[in-house]
């Protein structure tokens, strides 16, 4: 009587995480893809509206727009709900980076503006900025050393 039950439980244990993985992967894929498509829509819109702007300026405007939308959604607590569903789909895009700055800013404001809000803003963004800027300087120095390889 017990035997099939145990086998069944074992089967469930084997199957469950896998299907859960598949579900989270599917959610991350379509939400992440959708956020990128929203970004592409703003890129197309700005290219159409401001034809004098170059590709880099349009990309910067798009980034600012996505960050603004995320900041507002985070302020209302909506982005965290999206994040609970989307997983990496809401973390990996630039909106996830923006959320990682805005969210602790809101959560820690009770501890004061300077040591609560401002200091905690960078709990996740700090490492990102440190690694980002530092690695870019290393890249710049590599380019100086090996100019030929980069078309200089």
């Amino acid at each position, binding site marked *: 009587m017990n035997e099939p039950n145990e086998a069944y439980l074992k089967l469930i244990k084997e199957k469950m995480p896998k299907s859960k993985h598949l579900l989270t992967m599917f959610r991350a894929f379509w939400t992440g893809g959708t956020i990128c498509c929203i970004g592409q829509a703003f*890129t197309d819109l700005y290219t159409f509206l401001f034809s004098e702007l170059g590709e880099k300026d349009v990309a910067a405007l798009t980034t600012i727009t996505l960050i603004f939308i995320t900041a507002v959604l985070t302020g209302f607590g909506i982005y965290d709900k999206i994040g609970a569903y989307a997983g990496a789909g809401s973390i990996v895009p630039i909106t996830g980076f923006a959320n990682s700055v805005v969210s602790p800013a*809101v959560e820690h404001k009770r501890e004061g503006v300077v040591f609560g809000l401002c200091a905690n803003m960078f709990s996740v963004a700090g490492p*990102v900025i440190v690694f980002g800027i530092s690695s*870019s300087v290393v890249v710049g120095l590599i380019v100086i050393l090996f100019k030929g390889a980069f078309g200089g």
Partner: protein
Amino acid sequence: METFLTYLQVFAVGGTICLIGQVIINTTKVTSARILVGYLLLGVVLETAGVYKYIRDFGKAGATVPIIGFGSNLARGAIDGALESGILGAVTGGIEAVAAGIAAVIFFAFIVGLVATPKTK
């Protein structure tokens, strides 16, 4: 039809980058901060190696909206800066390229942080 195809490419590339992030989270339990840093550095490396421009040409916003595109932007800024104005450009090029994003993040986070009410614990 061409627009549809472009958005399909954007969706596929952006979605795949996020999917890989999810696989890493599922299998290694790394924190989101590490995912962001990892993708950022990958973007810097791929851009420096000259590979990322092909992904960007194909994926458009699907390649620039994820944080990996932020990394590629940093590297591209540093490379262009170093080629145009030498050592000074090598140091400032990266942060100049992402200045808009970082300024926007800090400014909007500050404003929203001041205005929004935190959840009660």
